[in-house]
């Protein structure tokens, strides 16, 4: 029969394995959330910087009312397939140059300066165009963000790894619990065998002593009983 404490140990081993697996999965979720946040921040920063570069480039065109040059600059953005739309607005807010990739909607007719933000599957930034402390207009930039499917595929590999690790932990925990229980059972059996052996030896010694002393001892024993 398995002692109670062995059963408890077996149970606690399983529990530890389960807790470790759950902790691992939670850690995985935290990692995904952290990566997602970091990715979004990094992407927003990138778009902000890109918008600032465009802003610095079109500043002279705005300063010298050269709409054609601003438009030419925006057309050059077609070399970047990630840019879906862009526009330049003058100091009165009027759109003076625009670019949009095929099948993409045009930039809005007016746009207020705004820090980079996510809009559906795009990231949008509206940056002021300024020089020598004077604002000459604004630049609107819309670029593609990662689609949900691509994001899922990015995290799928990590998710599978975490699940596998959790599974291995669970199996290891269960196996270790089983092994411990077996070990305790073996110890118990050995102890019982040793006790049996000791009892047999004692009986043998008693029998030998009786054969030397004759029948007094059994009589004494009976008298004593």
């Amino acid at each position, binding site marked *: 029969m398995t002692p109670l404490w062995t059963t408890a140990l077996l149970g606690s081993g399983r529990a530890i394995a389960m807790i470790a697996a759950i902790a691992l999965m939670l850690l995985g979720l935290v990692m995904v959330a952290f990566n997602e946040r970091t990715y979004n921040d990094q992407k927003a920063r990138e778009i902000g910087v890109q918008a600032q570069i465009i802003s610095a480039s079109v*500043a*002279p*065109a705005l300063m*010298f*009312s050269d709409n054609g040059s601003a438009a030419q600059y925006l057309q050059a953005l077609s070399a970047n397939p990630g840019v879906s739309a862009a526009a330049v607005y003058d100091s009165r807010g009027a759109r003076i140059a625009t670019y949009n990739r095929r099948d993409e909607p045009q930039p809005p007719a007016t746009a207020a300066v705004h820090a980079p933000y996510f809009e559906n599957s795009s990231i949008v930034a509206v940056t002021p165009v300024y020089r*020598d*402390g*004077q604002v000459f207009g604004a630049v609107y930039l819309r670029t593609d963000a990662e689609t949900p499917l691509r994001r899922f595929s990015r995290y799928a590999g990590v998710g599978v790894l975490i699940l596998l690790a959790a599974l291995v932990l669970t199996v290891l925990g269960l196996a270790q619990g089983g092994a411990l229980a077996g070990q305790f059972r073996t110890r118990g059996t050995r102890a019982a065998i040793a006790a049996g052996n000791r009892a047999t030896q004692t009986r043998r010694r008693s029998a030998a002593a009786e054969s030397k002393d004759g029948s007094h001892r059994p009589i004494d024993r009976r008298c004593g009983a």
Partner: protein
Amino acid sequence: MRFKRVILAVMLSAFAAAASQSRAQTSEDQVKATFLYRFVSFVSWPEGVFADAQAPIRICVLGAAPFADVLTRTTTGQRVAGRAFEIRRISELEAVTECHAVYAVGDRADAVLKATHGAPILTVTDGALGNSVTRGIVHFVTVDDRVRFHIDDARAAESRLLIDPRLLSLALSVRRRTAS
């Protein structure tokens, strides 16, 4: 009586045309004045030209008094690289050498260019007001009712001035400096 009416109508028309032309000229001067002070933002002068980091940018105007007034109004309160503007109307060629930029039109534009040759002075001429052959480092022209400009970067190099390539890209034409 009828003759008087005709005369009056002709006079009114002439007055209206003159007023319209004056407004157009003022507007064009306003654009040129704005462009002129903004050019400064894209030009680098050699070291030692300015007395200190706060020394104002002195723009001189020769031969275009109304423009000097417009330029003064336009540049009031404006700063480029922390420097304010000082607009000076000059009549003597000798005074040109004290300027960082000079707007010269009319017959004396050629003399100004000779007087400033090699000096770190941004010379600006105007094709609409005078000899279109005489061209400073920046030369204004009007194309399709819009003020545009040509840039002589080779002359800028002779004057030890450095012009931002972004400004060069907006010019109708650029006479390139020779590679040193």
